[in-house]
């Protein structure tokens, strides 16, 4: 099945092509049935990816195939695919989540006039996501990277007639482009220095020392810049909350499970470069990997803080995604110990975050597109399935025991614990623990506000359960949210996931799953429960109103409410700067250049023209006129000869002939005969 791996991206691409070109026709004939083309396109990849996963799990070696695409400066650029443990896992995750989301959106997008366009973009996105996951060299990776960015732009701005959606789409695209810039520079650097663009060749080169570790480090860091943009890490995260303008399934698929995860996956894929450049001080004396960790930590804390004060459920989930990504970055940042944890958290987070987003989607559906928590309440009774699936996702996210989140998040915290013990840098452990508390807090707040209590508006009154086509994906994802954690737990075949992933990386060969540390687990579980209880107290049991906290922690609250003023910051600095710059340039263009040209124009018109006119009139015309006059004169004289009278001509002829004859005869007589002439 490994050899057929290249088919996987083909299915969604095909579906996209069909929908793109024949979509309108098909919509007229099949109506809403168009969605099933996309669903089939994705579902078809499921058996393949599962097949590949089982083969790899059963010990098959990783497989890669490549086709030469172009020759540039002596290097053959290839389109290559690679399948190893990491990509197999990602494949499965993406296909399962995408399938569920496709089914969900079939229902959700009901009645939308751009129906087939939506599914075309979704299929395109899934296809490019598979491409990204399967890429075996930097070129394909970069191509997929750009495609994914494009799809996110298209899907965010799906309802382009809404101005804020269009603005959000451009914002997302521009911000990710900044990240992609670093990514591209990294790729160019590697293209120059790396023997080949393929990952394995690069890692081998680094290992054998043909490529210097420092360059590897710099390249790694630049590529991480791309990941920061794409995964909405600390400086470039501003676009993700606004991306919520897109339809909810889009947010679920792209901004929860796949695209944002791509950055983390890329860092995971290139971890050998980070590990090799550990000893190189790249930025402020820090090696690339620690930079990753720091940014991860900052993002996690900041996002969690903002999430707590948001009213819009999708924005809360957006910030929660950002913070969880921060967690993954920290996990990867812990080096060999945190690599497996980071990846495992990526997989599990994809499932329950997708679940949460879809849940919020069904809530919105019920509430006629209403997102503000204040207007909701008591939906639990009206939407029981949505409620318990939402609660499953929340608990998984918070990291309560049986749920997936507990195992994956806990492993990251465990990794930070080990790092803290090993190197004494406890800041990561403390930060993450605070994050756990905040996460539990805002998720609890969200759940209690939406589902429990009494409905605050009549819209909430009339809310009703979503149709089955939306509920079944929720149920499936809920199941995964609950039981996925176990494959990474030490009790199941001593951490099956760890052994499977470690088998792929030679550096991980030696390490084995870290034992289950009860103290750390206990601490994080306690913090999570605390958060939940605080939320319940504030919003369920209404023991005390949140206003108290707002007054006490008012600076934190203000900062959180205004999202740490990042938008304003960027608005004034970057945006204002470019606008100012463009105005300057325009001004310069108008004043300086146009001015000069006009001046020259005026000059010629007035001064030079006069000069030329004078010269032309007098000198040239004069000469020509003289010539004309002369020829006229000659012509006149010549014409006089031709009187048109035939007989004049004959007379002329005769006279002329006579003279010639006479001359000839006399000459002949004078010379030839030598006769003495009579005279």
């Amino acid at each position, binding site marked *: 099945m490994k050899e057929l791996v290249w088919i996987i991206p083909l299915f969604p691409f095909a579906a996209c092509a069909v929908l793109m070109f024949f979509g309108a026709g098909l919509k007229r004939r099949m109506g809403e049935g168009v969605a099933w083309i996309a669903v089939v396109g994705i579902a078809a990849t499921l058996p393949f990816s599962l097949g590949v996963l089982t083969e790899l799990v059963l010990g098959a070696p990783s497989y890669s195939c490549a086709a030469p695409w172009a020759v540039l400066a002596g290097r053959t650029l290839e389109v290559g695919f690679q399948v190893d443990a990491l990509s197999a896992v990602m494949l499965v995750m993406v296909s399962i989540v995408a399938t569920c989301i496709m089914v969900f959106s079939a229902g959700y997008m009901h009645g939308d006039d751009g129906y087939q366009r939506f599914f075309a973009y979704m299929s395109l996105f899934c296809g490019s996501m598979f491409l990204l996951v399967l890429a075996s060299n930097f070129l394909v990776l970069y191509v997929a990277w750009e495609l994914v960015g494009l799809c996110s732009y298209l899907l965010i701005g799906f309802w382009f007639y809404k101005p804020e959606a269009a603005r959000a789409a451009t914002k997302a695209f521009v911000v990710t482009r900044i990240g992609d810039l670093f990514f591209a520079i990294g790729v160019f650097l590697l293209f120059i220095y790396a023997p080949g663009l393929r990952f394995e060749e690069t890692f081998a080169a680094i290992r054998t020392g043909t490529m210097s570790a420092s360059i590897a480090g710099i390249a790694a860091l630049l590529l991480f810049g791309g990941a920061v943009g794409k995964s909405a890490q600390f400086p470039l995260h501003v676009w993700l909350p606004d991306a919520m303008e897109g339809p909810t399934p889009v947010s679920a698929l792209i901004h929860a499970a796949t695209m944002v995860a791509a950055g983390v996956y890329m860092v995971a894929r290139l971890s050998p470069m980070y590990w090799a450049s550990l000893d190189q001080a790249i930025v402020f004396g820090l090696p690339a990997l620690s930079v990753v960790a720091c940014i991860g930590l900052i993002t996690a804390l900041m996002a969690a803080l903002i999430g707590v004060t948001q009213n819009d459920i999708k924005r809360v989930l957006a910030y929660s995604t950002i913070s969880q990504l921060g967690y993954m970055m920290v996990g990867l940042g812990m080096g060999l110990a945190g690599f497996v944890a980071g990846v495992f958290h990526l997989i599990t987070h994809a499932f329950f975050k997708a679940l949460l987003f879809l849940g919020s989607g069904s809530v919105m559906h019920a509430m006629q597109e209403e997102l503000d928590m204040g207007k909701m309440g008591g939906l639990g009774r009206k939407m029981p399935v949505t409620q318990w699936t939402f609660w499953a996702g929340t608990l998984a996210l918070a990291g309560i025991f049986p749920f997936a989140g507990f195992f994956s998040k806990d492993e990251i915290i465990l990794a930070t614990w080990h790092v803290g013990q090993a190197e004494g840098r406890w800041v990561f452990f403390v930060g993450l623990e605070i994050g756990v508390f905040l996460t539990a807090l805002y998720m609890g707040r969200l759940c209690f506000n939406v589902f429990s209590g009494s409905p605050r508006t009549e819209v909430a009154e009339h809310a009703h359960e979503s149709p089955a086509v939306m509920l079944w994906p929720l149920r499936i994802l809920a199941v995964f949210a609950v039981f996925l954690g176990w494959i990474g737990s030490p009790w199941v075949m001593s951490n099956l996931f760890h052994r499977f992933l470690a088998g792929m990386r030679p550096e991980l060969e030696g390490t084995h799953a870290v034992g289950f540390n009860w103290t750390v687990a206990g601490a994080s579980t306690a913090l999570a429960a605390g958060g939940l209880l605080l939320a319940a107290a504030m919003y369920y049991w209404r023991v005390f109103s949140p206003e108290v906290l707002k007054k006490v922690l008012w600076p934190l609250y203000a900062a959180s409410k205004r999202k740490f003023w990042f938008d304003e910051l960027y608005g004034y600095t970057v945006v204002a700067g470019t606008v100012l710059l463009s105005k300057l340039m325009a001004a310069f263009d108008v004043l300086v250049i146009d001015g000069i040209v006009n001046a020259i124009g005026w000059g010629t018109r007035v001064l030079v023209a006069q000069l030329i006119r004078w010269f032309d009139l007098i000198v040239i015309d004069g000469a020509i006129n003289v010539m004309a006059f002369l020829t006229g004169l000659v012509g006149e004289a010549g014409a006089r000869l031709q009187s048109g*009278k035939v*007989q*004049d001509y*004959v*007379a*002329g002829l*005769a*006279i002329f*002939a*006579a*003279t010639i*004859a*006479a001359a000839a*005869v*006399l000459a002949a*007589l004078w010379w030839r*005969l030598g*006769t003495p*002439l*009579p005279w």
Partner: protein
Amino acid sequence: MNLVQYYGLTAEQWLEYVGFLGTAGVALVSGLGVLFARRVLHAAVWLLFCLLGVAGLFALMGAHVLFGVQILVYAGAIAVMIIFAVLLLERATGRGILSGNRHLFAGVVSAGAFVVVMAPTLGVALWAAGWPSQTAPTTGQTNVALIGRLFLTRHLLAFELMSVVLLVAMIGAIVLARAERRSDAEEAPEAQGGGAAHVPTEEARPS
């Protein structure tokens, strides 16, 4: 016979002399007639007589075939043709030669120049050659036989080519002359009834 040498000429030569004067006189007089005849038809008839005169000269010079051909072809056919042409064009009578002719001067000058130039030169040449008047003795062949033989031996090519030229000329003349009828019908419908009908009379013609 007591044929006496009168003025240095034998009877034979006298006869020839008289004959020459007669025919030459006819030729020259009718030549003048061609020149000064007021009506072109008369000029054409004078031409006829001139041709007969020239034929006589040929006969005098022993070119009997030429004499016959001259009369048969020239006088008989060409003169008739010219007269026919004049008949067709008679109505558009050209004015006489002497009445206010702008080209009179040109004519006198050119003819005069010719004569002035040729006469003395020929005179000198002939004087130099001693007024040749004796003819080479000829074999017994008659002129007819000689011409016939020469035509079919030495000058065969000229003979054949001449037939071609005649044919071409004939065709050319027919095409040119015949065009009048067709073109009349096509081009100038109002010029029906042949050319004569609307030939401008003497006065009407623009001066």
